Each structure stands twice: as C-alpha cells, then as structure tokens.
C-alpha cells in the first residue's frame, strides 16, 4: 500500500538547520497493531475504556523502575542544546521532532500528575491533563524516533530521548495502541524464533543453498553448520542475513572467515535471531524473553563462545544487556549466571562481535587477503547508532569506531571517511531504526535519512565513493530502500563482511 505523496528533500553540502514548521509531520501514522500479535505480547489491541488511568498508572510504575526516566523527566532545563541534533527534525522541520519537544510530550503529563507545581499551577510549567489527543501525539512522534541516542551525546545532563520514547511506547501498548510492525515482529520471534518468521527447515534449506553457491563461486567447500552440538562457537545473527540482499553477502563473509580460521562453529534454529525488538518498546520482560533464546541455545549446544553478526541494535542488546538479562558474560555470582559462565571460554569476551573476531584474526595474521579484488570499490563507513553510542568493541572506548574501519582498510585499498561531525559518536542514524523500518513510515524514513545522505553525497562527489559499508541489518535494509530517492544506486549499499568476503583467500 503506497503512502501519501511527499517531497524528497534536496541534497545540500551541509545539513542546514531548518526553520520550524509546526505540524509538518502530524499526519504520519504508523499502522496500528492487530489483535493477534498484541494478544501474544499480552497487550490489549484496542484503546481500553480505562485508558487514562491505565496510562498514568503505567507511567508511575515505569518512573519507579527506571532511574533514567525519573531523572530525565526532572532534569531538563529547556536549554535547546538538543534542538538541532535529531535527524528527523533536520529532515522534517517538525518541532515535535526536536528531542526536547519529543520528551515534553511526556514531560507535560508527568508534571501534571507527578509534580507539585504541575498539580497546582499547570499553566505555568507547561503541564497538561492526559487526553486522547496527547496519546495520538505520542503515537505519531514516538514512532518518529529511532532511539539513536544522538541527542544524549549533546545533552548537558545526558538526557536520552530513547529512554522516553521506549517508555512512551510501552505506555501506548498498555492502553492498546501498539504499532503493527514491531508488534508482529516480536510475535513472530515468540512463535517461530526470528523476526522474519523463518522456520527451521527453511533455514536449513537456505544454508545448504548458500553452501552450494559459495562452492560454485570459489571452489572451496565452505560450510554453514546448523545446530551442531559441541561446536566451539555459536553465531547469532539477524535473520535478515539469511535471505535479504545485501545482508546475505555478509553471512557468506562470516562463514568464509570461520572457514579460513579453521573454527568449529554453528548457527542455531532456536537462536536464529540476534535482533531484539523488545528493546524498541521498552519492555524489559519482552527483551529478556527474546534474549533467553540465545542463552538456551548456548546451553543446549554446549558452545564455548557466542559471536554476534552485523546488527546494530542486536549488538547493543548483546553487549550491554545480555549479561543482565541472560547471564551471557562474566562477573555474575548467582546460580543462574554461574551455570553458563562455567561453560564459556574465559579467554574471550562474551559475547563477541564478528568484527572483533575478524580483526583479532587479522592482527594474528591468520587471514590472507587479496585487497585488489575490492579495487573497484571506493568505500566509506557509516557508524550505526546503536553500535556507536550504545556499545563498544575491543578493549578501549571507541573501539567500535576503529575496529570496523581497520577491517575495511585491511581488505580494501580505497577508503574515505564522511565528515567528522557525521560519524563516530556524532553519527547520524540511517533513519530506519527502532521499529521505523516499515513502509507505512516511508516518509519519515526518507526524510530522516537526509543528514546521512548529505554527508554521503559529499564523499561520493568529492572522493568518488561508491560503497557505503555497514554493520547493521536495519541500516542495510533502510539504505537499500532509501538511497534511490536521493539518486543513488542501491548496489552501493553493503556489509563490512561483504568486503571481507570479496577479498579473503581461501584454501
């Protein structure tokens, strides 16, 4: 179903801060979640009669459970530092897409029900009663936030709008205003085990087909093992890697790296999804339930290491939250944690990113490349938001920036970074993260990609860049869809391990 017509922004040398245009994106409305998926997530699917009290009660519960929400509701001074930092504001000019204004959608309700001045003099402090109109605003604008945390870098108090968007979506779900895309994906993970709803036998077929393709292509029998008990490494990767282009090229890359290293590894049908949409909706229990599949598979298969494929938010959940949620990591001294810890190989960090794994092998000289095979490519690297601002790679802060670039430079000769204010911790989101990657939000996605497209266009024009290297399944899907709107070819989009795959020497 085609969305409404909209104007694609013009590319400019710098991303100018637009004059605000009130209501510019007020029409944007993601499809509501249907009964089936909402029921399986334990939420109502229509606005409940007691929506007002339910919403306020849920907000009160979240304020008591999350220090982030509690502190962020109080600490903002409306200084304006964040107002020009969100890619959705820069691309749409809608003032409610300024981080502080997005937060204020909830803050005005918080003030009315949970603070003294808001109860006594609401007009003075911008406090408002919760109405259906405000809930509608939440639904619109909490689905125009990709929880990328760029605003949190620039806030003098570290206020992270992602935490507020997550809480907002959780409250919306609680009153029966779920979003179709995220709701159905989580329901698929609960039922089948991955975001794409790909059952075990289909996965097995896909992997066999890929093995044949690689052998036909290289003459080497690179394997993609599935459910191998006693394998040393469990690879958990976004399910898009099994079937979407260009994602699958990176999956082939991982398999070639494991092959070249002589590693014993396996995929799992039970843990066939690294992604975790529970993150996006701010529900701890959902996120834990999704993540537990990986712990269960690791115990079942008896693996000693867990490695995560190219997926931004999956890596944030894996790196930052798996230890908390599932005990995948070290330092736990409770029986739940110890059960898994004693099985894992303590010489390696758990979990490990595939880029950490590959870079480690490159440094040890265990992988050989013919860099000239990538000579037709002039490459730039897009730091994915969740990797950049919500995780790390390697031993040093900032390893998430250097390690993927080091890999690219080890497998290819031509590399150019985009402008410094658009990469690293300042990176712009692709525009499709956190449940926005759906066709009913195409306008949000295209406009939200503007700052990244401007920076990309500069290196395309000035440095002849023709390849946008990524380590995120959502970024890959988003850019493949969106770059044509800005006049680029979708074949310019690909994965870091796609580059590895091209150059690696196998024997």
């Amino acid at each position, binding site marked *: 179903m085609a969305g409404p017509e909209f104007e694609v922004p013009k590319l400019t040398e710098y991303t100018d801060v637009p004059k605000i245009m009130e209501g510019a994106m007020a029409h944007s409305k993601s499809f509501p979640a249907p009964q089936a998926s909402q029921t399986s997530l334990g939420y109502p699917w229509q606005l409940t009669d007691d929506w007002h009290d339910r919403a306020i009660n849920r907000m009160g519960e979240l304020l008591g459970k999350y220090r*982030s929400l509690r502190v962020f509701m109080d*600490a*903002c001074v409306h*200084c304006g530092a964040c107002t020009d*930092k969100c890619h959705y504001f820069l691309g749409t000019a809608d*003032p409610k897409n300024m981080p502080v204004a997005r937060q204020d959608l909830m803050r005005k309700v918080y003030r009315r029900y949970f603070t003294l001045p808001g109860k006594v003099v609401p007009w003075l402090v911008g406090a408002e009663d919760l109405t259906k109109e405000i809930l509608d605003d939440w639904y619109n604008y909490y689905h125009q936030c990709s929880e990328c945390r760029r605003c949190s870098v620039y806030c003098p108090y570290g206020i992270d709008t992602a935490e507020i968007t997550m809480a907002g979506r959780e409250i919306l779900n609680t009153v029966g205003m779920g979003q179709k895309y995220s709701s159905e994906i989580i329901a698929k993970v609960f039922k089948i085990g991955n975001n794409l709803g790909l059952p075990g036998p289909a996965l097995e077929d896909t992997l066999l087909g890929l093995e044949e393709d690689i052998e036909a292509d290289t003459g080497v029998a690179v394997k993609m093992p599935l459910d191998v008990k006693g394998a040393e490494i469990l690879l958990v990767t976004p399910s898009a890697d099994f079937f979407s282009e260009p994602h699958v090229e990176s999956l082939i890359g991982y398999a070639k790296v494991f092959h070249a290293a002589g590693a014993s590894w396996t995929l799992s049908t039970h843990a066939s999804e690294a992604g975790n949409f529970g993150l996006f909706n701010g529900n701890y229990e959902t996120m834990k339930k999704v993540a537990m599949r990986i712990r269960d598979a690791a115990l079942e298969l008896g693996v000693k290491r867990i490695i995560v494929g190219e997926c931004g938010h999956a890596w944030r959940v894996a790196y*930052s*939250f798996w230890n908390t949620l599932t005990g995948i990591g070290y330092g736990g001294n409770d029986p739940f944690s110890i059960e898994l810890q004693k099985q894992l190989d303590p010489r390696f960090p758990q979990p490990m990113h595939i880029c950490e794994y590959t870079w480690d092998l490159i440094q040890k000289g265990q992988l050989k490349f013919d860099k000239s095979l990538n000579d037709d490519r002039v490459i730039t690297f897009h730091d994915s938001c969740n990797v950049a601002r*919500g995780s790390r790679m390697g031993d040093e802060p900032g390893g998430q920036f250097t390690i993927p670039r080091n890999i690219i430079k080890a497998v290819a000769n031509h590399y150019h970074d985009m402008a410094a204010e658009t990469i690293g911790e300042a990176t712009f989101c692709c525009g499709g993260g956190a449940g926005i990657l759906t066709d009913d939000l195409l306008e949000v996605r295209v406009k939200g990609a503007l700052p990244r497209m401007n920076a990309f266009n500069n290196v395309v024009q000035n440095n002849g860049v023709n390849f946008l290297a990524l380590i995120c399944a959502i970024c890959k899907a988003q850019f493949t869809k969106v770059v044509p709107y800005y006049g680029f070819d979708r074949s310019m989009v690909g994965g870091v391990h796609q580059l590895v795959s091209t150059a690696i020497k196998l024997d």
Partner: protein
Amino acid sequence: MTSLTLFYTGLYYFAAIVLIAGVAYRIAEYSGTPAPLKIPTTPAPTTHAGVLLRMAREVVLFESLFKSNKWIWVFGWMFHIGLALVLLRHVRYFQEPLWFVVEFIQPYGKYASFAMVAGLLGLWARRFLVDRVRYISTPSDHLMLALLLGIGVSGMMTTFVSHTDIVALKAFALGLVTFDWHPVPSDGPLLVHLTLVALLMIIFPVSKLLHAPGIFFSPTRNQADNPRETRHIAPWAAAAERK
C-alpha cells in the same frame, strides 16, 4: 525585634528547611530508583575512576554542552561560574573568622556578578531570538530567568549602587546560623534581594533546578562501560529472576 526582622528571619528558616528537606527527598528518590540496564552513552569510561573524571568534566566544564552549541555553552558557563564565585563570596556573611578561600576570591566574586548577569541575559535572548528555543520555552522558563536576573541585579545594587550596611547584614546572617537573631537592614535593594533568594530556595526542589542534583544520577553519564565484565542487575529484576 521588628516585624520586618521577624518576617525575614522566619522566611529564611522556612526556605532553608524546604531547600534542604526537598533536595534530600529528591536525592533519596533518585538514588532509590534502580537503573535496570547499562546505558552509558558510549564511548564511555570503562572504570569507576574514569566515570568520576567524565562527571567532573561534565559538571565543571559542561563538556557535552560544549560539543553541542557554543553560544549556549558560553552563556551557560559564564552564568554558572559567575554564580559559583558569587555564592562562595557570600560565605563571608556566615562565618567569622573567614576561610582563606573566601578571603581570596572576594575581589573576583564581586565582579563575577557581571559574568552571571551577562550569561543570564544571553540565555534569555535565545528564548526570543532562536525559533526552536522559543517553541520549547514555557512561562516558567522565562520566570526562572527573571528571578535569577532579579537576584543578580538586586545583589549588585547593594554593592555597586546603594551600599548596604554590611556589618549589620553580617550580624543578621550570622545570627540566623547561631540562633542569635539580629535586625535585618531595611534598605530596598537588599530586601528585594533577600526575598528573591528565599523564593529561589523554596522552588528549587520542585523546579528544573533539579538538574543540579539530577546530573549526578544520570545513567548515561554515571555508569561505567563494563557490561561484559560485571553483571549489572536491578533488585526488581533479580527478584523476578529468582521466581
């Protein structure tokens, strides 16, 4: 004791109790609310010492704001550093003999008020001149700036325009601390200054001034980036896990 002195003596005890009890309550609330997940904005320090350093840069230099917007940083930093010096200078009214630091900053503290007021004017101008900031400003944002400016300007007047009887003021202030009450000097600028300061103290615990204690509890700034090495779990999550 005149009714004027009675009023200001009572006002300051009330304001001090509200400020101390209110902020203590907020701090208890913030520290009592668990942070269930590791969410430092990365790249983040990996050690506790690194976190202390990051927090110090944030609180003293406004590091994130500096990255964000140089105008807000200049005005904001001028205001806060000016206020800090002015506050430190005011300690002289509450102690005898004086702490040497208070003695030392006396000449700077006096002129720091200019930086403070200039910073406030800059911040207020942005609320009118920048369309994005105009959009997010509430009446209370304007009133807060007016209140702080009123405090700054009335305070400067007691020093630079119509000199307050400083010996009598010190007797009044010291009297509050030692419960040996003395009359409040009755000149206009001083009484305006004292009233506005008391008002600020009273609204502190229910206003956006909570950013001051709040920043120390901000999980994106006060957490170490070490989730693979240590298991971080909130009490409510651990309780659910044991079920």
